[in-house]
């Protein structure tokens, strides 16, 4: 049997049901466990289950010793299906239905009539019934499958145009959800590279990160809608647990890289694509942002170190630089390649080992891996508490150039680069 916090009641029961154990025996304690003293936790144990009102330990002992009921022993298997169409209704009622069922982001949608979806499908040569992939809100949830047609339906809803569909299909093909269920309210960031940027009039200049371009806006929105619908939903308390939510999720910060004005190699080329190929790259875990203006001659090192120190050490930095700032970094530090700047960041993003390992996210997600010998964390674990260690592995640090050079503002996004996918493969 298992013990959970009461905030997760709906999610836990849904996971048990869809994993084939609808009768799984559960007990709940209050939320949160984190940060509570031993005395407070003992009160949880000796207190009542906030869901059932029964004593927690009585439930646990009972769960381990009470014989299985006939219902619990009964075998079953059932298929679930998704009808191709929604029951016909008026426009007004369908809009209400889609919103009520959580199929939208609560902004107006374009209703996906068959005619509109057919028009959207003209944007790709792929068969509408071709399987694109599977997606899930988190690794412990069931994966739902989807076709080219299903992706097109969501692209229509987002207001995208057929010529954007190859980019949207490439995003769907990453199988990375832009609606992860994590309590941390993570969003995604999407960077498009290559000739497709020109072909569909994406924005990499003034206002590229939003909301000032139709392609940027609707491709990002389509990614969010397809994620929540194709993975089986993104419903608060059930399939979405983000405590605060995240405004970045509205369009997954979707923009094109300013390759023409960047002093460095385009991002997709760093990931192994040819410059004349088109690709889309997904960054996950986007929550934190630091920003600054310019790269000052006298104290730029201290300024950047301080910005890095303010980021959560679990999420590595991606520098999102206006071309003005990119060139300033070249001038200030002789960083004529991204690699050189990345090395500097790696070498300067440091903190005492004891402070690093005490971070809750590090304890949850890095410490167990260090114990299992995963490098470089295992070596980092050997450092004395007061020893300064580099907290971001070098291969997790990235640089993207975007902006219209109206000034040298720049940002650090705390996020994990996940994957780059060919857009050309989905034309």
């Amino acid at each position, binding site marked *: 049997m298992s013990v959970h916090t009461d905030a997760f009641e709906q999610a836990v029961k849904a996971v048990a049901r869809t994993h084939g154990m609808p009768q799984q025996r559960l007990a709940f304690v209050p939320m949160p*466990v984190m940060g509570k003293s031993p005395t407070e936790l003992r009160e949880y144990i000796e207190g009542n289950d906030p869901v059932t009102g029964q004593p927690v330990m009585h439930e646990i002992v009972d769960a381990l010793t009470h014989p299985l009921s006939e219902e619990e022993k009964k075998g079953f298997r059932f298929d679930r299906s998704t009808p191709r169409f929604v029951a016909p209704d008026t426009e007004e009622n369908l809009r209400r239905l889609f919103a009520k069922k959580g199929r939208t982001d609560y902004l107006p949608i374009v209703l996906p009539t068959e005619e509109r979806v057919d028009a959207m499908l003209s944007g790709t040569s792929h068969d509408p019934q071709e399987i694109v992939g599977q997606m899930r809100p988190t690794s412990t949830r069931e994966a739902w499958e989807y076709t080219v047609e299903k992706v097109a339906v969501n692209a229509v809803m987002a207001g995208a145009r057929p010529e954007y569909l190859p980019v949207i299909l490439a995003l769907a093909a990453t199988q990375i959800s832009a609606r992860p269920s994590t309590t941390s309210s993570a969003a995604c960031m999407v960077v498009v590279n290559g000739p497709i940027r020109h072909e569909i009039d994406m924005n990499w200049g003034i206002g590229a990160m939003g909301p000032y371009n139709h392609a940027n806006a609707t491709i990002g929105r389509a990614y969010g809608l397809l994620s929540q619908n194709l993975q089986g939903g993104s419903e608060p308390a059930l399939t979405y647990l983000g405590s605060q939510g995240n405004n970045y999720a509205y369009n997954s910060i979707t923009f094109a890289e300013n390759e023409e004005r960047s002093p460095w190699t385009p991002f997709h080329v760093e990931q192994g694509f040819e410059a004349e190929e088109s690709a889309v790259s997904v960054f996950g875990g986007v929550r934190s942002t630091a920003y600054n203006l310019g790269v000052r001659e006298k104290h730029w090192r201290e300024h950047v170190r301080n910005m890095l120190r303010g980021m959560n050490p679990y999420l590595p930095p991606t520098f999102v630089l206006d071309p003005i700032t990119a060139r300033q970094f070249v001038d200030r530090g002789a960083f004529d390649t991204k690699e050189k700047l990345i090395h500097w960041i790696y070498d300067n993003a440091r903190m005492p080992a004891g402070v690093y390992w005490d971070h809750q996210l590090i304890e949850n997600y890095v410490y167990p891996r260090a114990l*299992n010998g995963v490098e470089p964390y295992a070596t980092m674990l050997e450092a004395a508490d007061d020893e300064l260690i580099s907290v971001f592995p070098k291969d997790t640090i990235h640089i993207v150039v975007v902006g219209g050079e109206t000034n040298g503002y720049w940002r650090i996004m705390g996020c994990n680069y996940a994957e780059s996918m060919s857009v050309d493969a989905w034309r």
Partner: protein
Amino acid sequence: MNSAKSTQEETRIKIIYCVECNLEPEAKRLATAIKNRFGLEAKLEEGHDGIFEISMDDHVIYNNLAQGGQLPTDKEILQRIQQRMEPPSSIRREKLKVMNPMGYPPAVTQIEMAPRLDTLEGKTVYLVDCRFDDGDLLMAQMQAWFKEYMPSVKTVLRSKSGIYTEDDPELFEEIGEKGDALVLGVGH
């Protein structure tokens, strides 16, 4: 006020009021309410025989004689004007066939539940921390409870290997060999 400008050129409101019944003040008050809400100038027209009628684009939206002489409230008239400003009802009532945006869920197959024990007396119960947000501290308190209230139960407190989403087959093999029961926590 929001849609006033776009509709002002096309929308015509007329109020016919009975002069003998002294309904002119009612008509003027209603015209002011319409002006304030929609920015529309209502045309006032004298009538007789107790009439108080409001029409919009030559369509009568209220006639008090058809309502037993009852005068309308301003709110009632404003609502009717608002309703007529919305898209034609023929479009709104048309049923659309739209496609389902949801993906395809996998089939669900039952996982057999483990048989239960007759008693925990003398048994070994593994208390496994799944490594999420200080769950080990709660499981330690659970172990303390067993020691105090069910001392014959042998408890083994363990943290699983890897992060909470990862499997730990070695531990679960050990529990299968050496344990009688398992409590896993703290799930979120």
